């Protein structure tokens, strides 16, 4: 089966909650940008997958109908923070299998201020088992918002296991801000120092606010197609998806002695193995990475789970500058979730947008990774699901 071609990408600028258009208008904006990028009309698209977490049912239709009502199949997708990539996984599967010639994945989120928490309190939380694993390991977990608890605990666990210095985590935020400086789509573009990240309000364990991504509004869209379709529509077929994996939890996610699992380390490893194998490539082939740095600790865990550096060696990887321009790979040239923001349904598709533009070599504002040929995308959601995509 042939690799899907990335025909078009597009995203809106990301903003703080309350500073954007509504979800449906943002969604339509991103879809129009992707269609324009591909030189296509909505009537050229066979089917669409709409990703979002916060909103009523059929929000995807509401957004896409602003662009056109073609009667195509539209499927709304919710897979927590990996929703956007899950939509792309479905679109790619449709194209790979020959079910569709051209498929659209779009994602959007209109978020509220404050830490992520549960919306439905009259029923068991889907992440209850993950929280219980943390509670068996650490005290004082009650009343801590879910995401801060899980990622804060995973960070503490990592530091205990490898003796990692607190500054190592802080440097991830500093790098993210440096990368985002010239990205007009990013929420946070001002540089910060290690001292400022440390001095920001403490959330849980050693996690501070500037080590957490902000609630964000925004939308992004990606169109994939077959090579026959690309030829017929005069589409640049230079960027493809040679490998992609979607994985969910196994027993390793629920080990109180290794809390990297509750935030998706095993899921990432499994999805990455599938993506690398399908692509016939390995971590050593990768030039540029967009990974899921919802918290600083998750960037560090992802370096290792994606095979960019060996387990426990992230501190040296960071010290050596191997995660930025001039190093072995450039990780999150967009500024990542920490600086660009994390409008949940849009995030995975914004990552693909950045990587596609990087591989086209056409980013003009100073963050182009020179000579980038292979891109790697990583997007996970607690609960859980993770997607890893190889672009080339």
């Amino acid at each position, binding site marked *: 089966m042939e690799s899907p071609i990335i025909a078009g990408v597009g995203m809106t600028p990301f903003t703080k909650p309350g500073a954007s258009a509504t979800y449906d208008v943002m969604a339509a904006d991103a879809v129009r940008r992707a269609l324009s990028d591909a030189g296509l009309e909505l009537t050229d698209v066979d089917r669409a997958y709409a990703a979002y977490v916060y909103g009523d*049912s*059929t929000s995807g*239709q*509401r957004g896409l*109908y602003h662009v056109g*009502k073609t*009667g195509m*199949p*539209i*499927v709304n997708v919710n897979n927590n923070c990996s929703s956007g990539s899950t939509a792309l996984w479905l679109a790619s599967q449709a194209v790979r299998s020959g079910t569709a010639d051209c498929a659209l994945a779009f994602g959007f989120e209109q978020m509220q201020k404050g830490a992520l928490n549960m919306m439905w309190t009259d029923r068991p939380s889907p992440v209850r088992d993950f929280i219980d694993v943390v509670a068996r390991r650490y005290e004082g977990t009650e009343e801590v918002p879910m995401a801060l608890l899980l990622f804060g605990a995973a960070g503490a666990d990592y530091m205990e296991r490898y003796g990692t210095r607190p500054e190592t985590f802080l440097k991830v935020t500093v790098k993210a801000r440096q990368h985002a400086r010239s990205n007009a789509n990013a929420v946070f573009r001002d540089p910060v120092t290690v001292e400022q990240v440390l001095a920001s309000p403490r959330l849980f364990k050693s996690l501070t606010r500037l080590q957490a991504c902000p609630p964000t509004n925004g939308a992004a869209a990606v169109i994939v197609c077959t090579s026959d379709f690309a030829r017929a529509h005069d589409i640049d077929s230079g960027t493809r998806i040679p490998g992609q994996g979607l994985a969910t939890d196994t027993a390793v996610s629920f080990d109180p002695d290794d809390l990297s699992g509750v935030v998706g380390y095993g899921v990432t490893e499994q999805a990455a193995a599938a993506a690398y194998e399908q692509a016939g490539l390995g971590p050593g082939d990768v030039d540029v990475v967009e990974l899921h740095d919802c918290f600083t600790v998750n960037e560090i865990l992802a370096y290792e789970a994606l095979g960019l550096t060996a387990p426990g060696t992230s501190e040296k990887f960071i010290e050596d500058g191997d995660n930025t321009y001039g190093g072995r790979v450039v990780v999150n040239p967009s500024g990542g979730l920490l600086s660009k923001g994390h409008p949940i349904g849009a995030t995975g598709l914004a990552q693909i947008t950045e990587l596609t533009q990087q591989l086209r070599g056409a980013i003009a504002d100073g963050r182009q990774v020179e000579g980038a040929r292979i891109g790697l995308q990583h997007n996970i959601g607690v609960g859980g699901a993770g997607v890893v995509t190889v672009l080339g």
Partner: protein
Amino acid sequence: MPAGQRAAQLAYEQAGVSPSDVDVVELHDAFASEEIVHYEDLGLCERGEGVALLRSGATSLGGRIPVNPSGGLLSPGHPLAASGVRTIADITNQLRGRAGDVQVPDARVGLAQMLGGVVNGMDVAAASVHVLTR
């Protein structure tokens, strides 16, 4: 053309069957009135003949084309995301001859239809039609 009618046409075409081949139907009767419209959208009768089809008894158990032998959404209830899968399960049981008291004799072609949402105007946001055979 309403989404429900389009989905039905796509499903009939892909399956290579016509409405007259269908032995048993499970459909989205969230409200009693819509069942009449769905008869027409699914081609079980001509446009405007839905009420007459109902009154004829053809869509009751023992009729020509029993609709919702399970009791539909109106009786078993409508846990939204579960209903579409429940109808597939009920049609599968009909085709396997395992539907017990509500078995349609020798059912060989079944149809399951589910609809969702109203976004803009009066049409549904999504319509799904499955044709099942044995």
